[in-house]
């Protein structure tokens, strides 16, 4: 933001000094990061420390490769605060707290694989309850930030839905169904053109810049503008948005705001690939009837990364989606042969919808499906022998 022009202070009257003070405060709001605020708010009260005791943060736990009881090896996903690639979203919240959200697996079956003996795998996935809590908190926070944005920046006031143009009620800039949604109605002084110009250039706290806007009108619908602002996806939810619809009536512009997010399924223990793994077969089949390209991976380091790639995937969206492109699609399958002799298969449908990965354990489908965003690219890098065929 450019500094406004002020008179030299010595020549300022009280109003000018106060205006400079207000502007100074506003210019420092950026020091208060909305996600830091959320993280602090949702951080459980720490118990009093005792001498000689130290804590592992959720991030440290998530980042660790745990060797439990000296004999088990677990390759953990990079959930939690240590995952710098997760953006500034609520994935930085203590979803992955070691207590209450730990999936404990094992002891692993006995036959000698890469690592013999019993093992216990601690995987810090958020539970469904934690996902629900984080989603509820985020939608409340998004809604509060939107309210602040409209009242502080546009001098808007909340109004009952009944006091807004009827056409606004049926309009939403975000999907009509979702697991978490909050709707508000607002009256903002000024014309639709003025308000829309502002909304194109500014966005509520916690969201990125406008990711899309449109204008429309019809026989039943007055001229209106719609805006969408994205908030970062996290391990708890895949889609977080604020949608705004603006419509003018008289000298006032009325807004409908929808803070919306689609939460994920919590991962179950059955979907986790547990060490020891003897080998991984990576198979790509392009289209229906295509000849599969297969590569068998046996080196420990790559196996560990492939296991981690599957275990790092968050659950898929809880919103049911039906895709009609199965027949034309390609499959990327990873078959993990466990030390116990069993197999776990992670299969991604490529080029159809959001890239969901389904998991089968010894031939039995297990739930939930996983969000395969970025999965194919990661496997490409790990097993380039298969990648060039695509």
């Amino acid at each position, binding site marked *: 933001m450019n500094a406004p022009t002020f008179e030299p202070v010595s020549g300022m009257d009280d109003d000018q000094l106060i205006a400079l*003070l207000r502007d*100074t405060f506003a210019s420092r709001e950026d020091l208060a990061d*909305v996600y830091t605020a959320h993280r602090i708010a949702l*951080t459980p009260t720490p118990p009093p420390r005792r001498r000689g005791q130290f804590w592992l943060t959720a991030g440290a736990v998530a980042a660790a490769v745990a060797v439990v009881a000296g004999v088990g090896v677990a390759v953990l996903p990079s959930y939690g605060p240590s995952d710098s690639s997760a953006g500034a979203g609520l994935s930085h919240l203590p979803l992955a707290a070691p207590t209450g959200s730990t999936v404990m697996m094992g002891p692993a079956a006995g036959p000698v694989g890469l690592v013999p003996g019993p093992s216990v795998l601690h995987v810090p996935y958020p539970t469904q309850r934690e996902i629900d809590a984080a989603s509820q*908190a985020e939608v409340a926070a998004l809604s509060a*930030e939107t309210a602040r944005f409209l009242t502080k920046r546009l001098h808007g006031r909340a109004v009952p839905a009944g006091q807004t143009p009827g056409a606004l009620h049926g309009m939403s800039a975000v999907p009509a169904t979702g697991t978490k949604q909050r709707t508000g109605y607002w009256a903002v002084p000024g014309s639709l053109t003025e308000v829309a110009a502002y909304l194109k250039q500014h966005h509520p706290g916690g969201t990125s810049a406008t990711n899309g806007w449109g204008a429309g009108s019809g026989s039943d619908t007055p001229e209106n503008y719609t805006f969408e602002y994205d908030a970062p996806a996290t391990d708890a939810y895949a889609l977080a948005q604020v949608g705004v619809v603006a419509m003018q009536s008289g000298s006032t512009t009325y807004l409908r705001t929808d803070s919306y997010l689609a939460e994920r399924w919590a991962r179950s223990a059955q979907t986790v690939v547990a060490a020891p793994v003897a080998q991984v077969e990576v198979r790509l089949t392009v289209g229906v009837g295509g000849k599969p390209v297969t590569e068998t991976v046996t080196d420990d380091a790559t196996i560990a990364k492939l296991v981690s790639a599957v275990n790092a995937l968050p659950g898929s969206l809880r919103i049911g989606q039906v895709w009609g492109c199965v027949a034309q699609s390609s499959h990327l399958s990873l078959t993990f042969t466990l030390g116990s002799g069993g197999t776990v298969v992670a299969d991604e449908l490529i080029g159809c919808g959001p890239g969901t990965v389904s998991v089968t354990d010894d031939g039995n489908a297990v739930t939930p499906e996983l969000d395969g965003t970025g999965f194919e690219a990661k496997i490409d890098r790990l097993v380039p022998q298969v990648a060039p065929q695509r």
Partner: protein
Amino acid sequence: MEAYEEIVTAHAPALLRLAVMLTGQRQDAEDLLQSTLLKAERHRGRLVDMGAPGAYLRRVMVNEHLSLGRTRLRRVATVSAERVPEPAAEDVTGVLDQRDEMWRRLATVPRQQRAVLVLRYYEDLPDAEIARVLGVSEGTVRSNAFRGLAALRAQLSSPESLPPR
């Protein structure tokens, strides 16, 4: 999700902004938010039943901030305006604008006066509400505001503190 967590999460961004304005430092602001929420957590039952939990949380924060100030004043010498260190980067580039100067000088204003300025000109609270938050009379609010503004004006008016042209 429990109502308490929902309330504090919804209010946390605004509280952190308030903390930044009160303390002037990001890290201090985060510490202040944390200590505020720790205090509030002890009364979570009451908070959930309140009609305006945001006002309560704001009051807890401001008083926590003033209380911390009183504790520290006993141990730390106050910093006079003349001794406020200049930010090194700004010294080099010479690009201090008046907002930078104002922000820097705010650090020298006594805590209670600064709190009044923040509540009045950032939170836009009326004096009666500020008096309730601080537990003082409206007259004290007005005198604190007057003194705070006067101090800022005096500091900002001195030629050496004006931003370079």
